[in-house]
């Protein structure tokens, strides 16, 4: 169902995406996506951006951004060692490990 909860719509979207945008975004996100799926992603992402563009109709020039509802700030602690070394346990779930190091394809020739 479509709820008529939003009174104002942006006249024009900030930007409708095209195929090359989606390819660029997928690269930035380090996501391999199938060529055949790109049109659907392009449409989905454009629709989502169209939805969120409703925000642009609201004047927020006097409004502080809110990251935490209770305006809590990060706690600080003393710079002491509080954790034990759990390398073996944590590396037990890694795809490829050798001598305590994570293995990846060769980066430097």
């Amino acid at each position: 169902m479509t709820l008529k909860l939003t009174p104002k719509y942006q006249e024009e979207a900030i930007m409708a995406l095209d195929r090359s945008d989606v390819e660029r975004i997928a690269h930035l996100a380090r996501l391999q996506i199938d060529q055949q799926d790109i049109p659907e992603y392009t449409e989905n992402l454009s629709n989502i951006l169209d939805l969120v563009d409703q925000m642009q109709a609201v004047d927020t020039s006097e409004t502080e951004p809110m990251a935490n509802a209770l305006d809590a700030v990060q706690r600080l602690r003393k710079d002491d060692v509080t954790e034990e070394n759990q390398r073996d346990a944590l590396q037990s779930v890694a795809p490829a490990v050798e001598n305590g190091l994570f293995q990846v394809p060769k980066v430097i020739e």
Partner: protein
Amino acid sequence: MFDKTLAELAQGLENGDFSSVELTQAYLDRIKAEDSKYNSYISVTESQALAQAKAADDTRAAGNAGAFTGLPFAHKDIFCTEGVRTSCASKMLDNFVAPYNATVVDKFNAAGGVMLGKTNMDEFAMGSSNESSFYGPARNPWDTERVPGGSSGGSAAAVAARLAPAATGTDTGGSIRQPAALCGITGIKPTYGRVSRYGMIAFASSLDQGGPMTRTAEDAAMMLNVMAGFDRRDSTSMQRDVPDYTADLSKPLAGLKIGLPKEYFPSDLNPAIAEQVQNAIKEYEALGATVKEISLPNTGLAVPAYYIIAPAEASSNLSRFDGVRYGYRCDSPVDLEDLYKRSRGEGFGAEVKRRIMVGTYALSEGFYDAYYKKAQQIRRLIKQDFTEALKEVDVIMGPTTPEPAFKLGEKTSDPIAMYMEDIFTIALNLAGLPGISIPCGQTNGLPVGLQVIGDYFAEQKLLNVAHQFQLATDWHKQSPEGI
């Protein structure tokens, strides 16, 4: 036995009517016999459950039993469980056996709870129908052609199908309350920071919050007593005392001021939902409450702001799944970039990829102010709507969802239609406020949920308001046909 609430089961254990081992075995047998209809569990941890039950019986025999000792329940498969696969319903983590426990898991272990297994969910908690799960959708016990809601759909289906007396859930935009509503159970999303997020696989860190999914408000209070509390390992955990959530349940509601936001009853709301919710409000008036129309003028901006903030935080959080340290790794990567791209491309499902891309775009150079900052400003406006309203009323009520459970496949091709499912629940996550959904009626044999919203840390009040309704009505006692 399967119709008993946690509170009743606790009494049965205390009376010696049955042991935890007997109770646990009964549930394990029932899961084995029935869950193929609902697909509510991803993993059933039989041997571990029986060991925990045995230990709980020993604890009781030694005279050391607490309120939760020996009670079986299920964990959403988003909570890390040491030595047990923790999949987040993703191919990415299909092979992931967590090397440590989430704080919530430690707390239930310390309380003597018995984990029956890990429940199905939308992949990485992204979805409102449980259809994005790598393990296939969970099904609604009220009609197995319909979705149980999501993302905590497996938890809701398991409780509704009596395959667990209770389960944990997590709620980033409605993921406890919406499936609770669609499956006819009780689900509470606590205030942001009340339940530790440590070891709860992150989706959108400024919105994620764990909570109980149960048959009754009383059971939810028992669960929350175990779950809530400060945790130094969660940087946004609130340093604040935890009350006994069962303490205020029996307070009478005379004089309770209820606000009804006009925006939560739009002209095109499903009429059956509106009617059932209005009936529930009348019940509250009969219990001595007064009702007042209020306005939350920025309600329509909640879904748009959410679909920037949640994907932006998700794109950052899910960057950790790189095929190097844990999780899925593609075959024969030719170089590091290929390793990243194919591990992620093959390991994540379509909705997760969509959200990562939306978030990546919103945070990319040149768009930050227009999207993320703007959404954080809208977020403050939404919070202000609630804080103004809550100066005049004690609680806010409305429908949890705009419609009852929909059919499998009905919304999978239209992400926006799926997003609108959470239109009444999402604003609370943005504001950080607590909310509870309780069954308040039915339409065509499907449950309808009433959402009750309270002020920060007003969980006791919400549970009291919900419990009093459940003393006066029996919607929460209804079960699907044949169950």
